């Protein structure tokens, strides 16, 4: 039993923290304000290997582990929630399923370019009528010779438009329900595949969230990920891993709001003393700090389970549930501590509060996490 990061993880934390402070933080307010995808940051991250952290060197990755990956999302999100989710969606939802479920040919073809950041990745499961009920897929894939013809649409797709590689789920046999869902690797530029309207969002406004449209889009059979009919299982397992990423994002946003509030509480004087000297501040902050630390332990424990090859589905769900709700609570209280200033865009806590909300919703709402956890308890 060991709660300390090992030396590799510590050195990595030092690097990613410095990178986040110097390269990511200065852009956070601007990309939020302008709802601009930070292409320049993605290029810098690609150069350093941040887009392929938990991938073996043989496939062009950095050869790191999921703890390091989680630390990366945490530290990036600590200063910019948008940057955190770009890396998380790319890695957890596109790179990892190709690594875990792809054929050797698919791995060789896609992973090196994805890890080097020449290509960015995305994942398309959600549809207008298939949200939490992801099994109700209406996107259809019909075989035709060596190809499948895709028709339908996906919504709320992170990295859409900037990604070159998409993991897309579609019904190949409606008669057998979830066992009729298949996963496909779809490349940008495939005829019949287009990116639809961009969503205007409350938070993570620098990330691209769009609709994907498939109109008689022909995908070669060699681009089926896993087995025909095995898509739903791939989606669920992929989301288990994704939840470690989003839990790390929630944790990072919470830590960022703590950092800002601690600094502000020491500086801000009312009634002749720093507001950090008031017991109300101290007790509330002590509680929030405890919850953030508890989130971190849950997140690291889930990541460690994944690294050691143990089942981690419920652990990832608990980490995401707790970290997301903590993030929402911490950021809301951070705004309150900042008073009127906290409500303005002069201070980053209002952005953090807007960014935190999505962590309770995407890659499984808090309610879905409870379903997953309960299923584990009562199995």
């Amino acid at each position: 039993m060991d709660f300390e990061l090992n030396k590799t993880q510590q050195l990595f934390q030092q690097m990613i923290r410095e990178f986040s402070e110097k390269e990511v933080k200065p852009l956070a307010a601007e990309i939020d304000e302008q709802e601009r995808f930070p292409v320049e940051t993605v290029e810098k991250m690609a150069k350093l290997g941040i887009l392929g952290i938990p991938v073996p060197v043989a496939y062009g990755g950095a050869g790191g582990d999921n703890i390091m990956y989680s630390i990366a999302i945490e530290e990036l999100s600590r200063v910019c929630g948008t940057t955190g989710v770009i890396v998380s969606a790319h890695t957890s939802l596109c790179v990892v399923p190709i690594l875990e479920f792809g054929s050797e040919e698919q791995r060789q073809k896609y992973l090196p370019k994805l890890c080097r950041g020449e290509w960015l990745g995305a994942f398309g499961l959600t549809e207008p009528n298939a949200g939490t009920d992801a099994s109700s897929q209406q996107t259809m894939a019909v075989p035709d010779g060596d190809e499948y013809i895709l028709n339908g649409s996906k919504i709320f797709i992170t990295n859409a438009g900037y990604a070159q590689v998409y993991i897309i789920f579609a019904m190949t046999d409606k008669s057998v329900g979830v066992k009729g869902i298949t996963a496909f690797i779809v490349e940008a530029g495939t005829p019949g595949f287009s990116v639809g309207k961009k969503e205007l969002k409350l938070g993570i406004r620098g990330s691209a969230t769009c609709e994907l449209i498939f109109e008689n889009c022909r995908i070669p059979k060699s681009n089926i990920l896993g087995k025909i009919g095995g898509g739903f299982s791939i989606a669920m397992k992929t989301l288990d891993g994704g939840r470690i990423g989003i839990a790390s994002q929630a944790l990072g946003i919470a830590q960022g709001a703590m950092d800002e509030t601690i600094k502000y509480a020491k500086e801000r004087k009312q009634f002749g003393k720093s507001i950090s000297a008031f017991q109300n501040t101290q007790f509330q902050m002590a509680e929030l700090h405890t919850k953030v630390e508890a989130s971190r332990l849950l997140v690291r424990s889930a990541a460690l389970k994944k690294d050691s090859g143990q089942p981690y589905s419920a652990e990832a769900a608990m980490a995401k549930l707790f970290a997301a709700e903590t993030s929402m609570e911490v950021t809301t209280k951070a705004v309150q501590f900042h008073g009127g200033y906290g409500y303005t865009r002069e201070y980053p806590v209002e952005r953090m509060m807007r960014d935190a909300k999505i962590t309770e919703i995407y890659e499984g709402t808090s309610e879905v996490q409870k379903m997953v956890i309960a299923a584990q308890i009562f199995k």
Partner: protein
Amino acid sequence: MMKIVVCIKQVPDTNEIKINQVTGTLIREGVPSIMNPDDKGGLEMALSLKDKYNAHVTVITMGPPQADSILREALALGADRAILLTDRKFAGADTLATSHALAGALKRLEWDLILTGRQAIDGDTAQVGPQIAEHLSIPQVTYAEDLTYDGNRVFTVRKQSEEGYQILEVESPALITVLATANKPRYMSVKGIVEAFNKEVEIWGADKIEIDEEKLGLKGSPTKVYKAFTKGLRAAGQLYEVESEEAVGIIISKLKEKFIV
């Protein structure tokens, strides 16, 4: 292939040091250790020469076993070889004994260029680099803020000075001390970090280096600390925003008031 050795030092991050308000002493507990900023500038200079001219870069440090972490950092940044000089016989060294130990190790290595930081943030002496050059009897250029290489044997160095800068040419083998502001150090790559811990950090004791042991550690350190104290705080000065003629008058009257003139 050009061979470069970079001397680096682990120092407490002085930005993170707080002062105990009661005793006036430095609180060292919990202060993170970092690679000295000027040394990092030297390492970056070596690595950019490696990028352009395919040089081989060795990093060397003298310090306790924990100094391993800055050598791992250097390996993650792109250094090829790392050496840790560590031995009880080195303990208590002042700048002279330190430079003897490092020069003794350098005599066991091959190099065309030795880079060091200008000075360490925990001592600010700027003596170790020049002393090494003297022990090795090679030319030195201090305070480098830029360096170019002709691809053969000549380095052109822009040396910072109080009046401005000088452009100097120096032929290898030479030692150059570098400022942190000479460049923007790169970040470690993720792969570099992972691989840094699979590489070897060579541990060298006093027996591995070419030096008379009398010159090492406390024995070899002529520096005697007479007294260490914290500077007393002074009251804030008075600020006048006035025309220069009036200012002269104020200054003279203040000097007279204090019987200075």
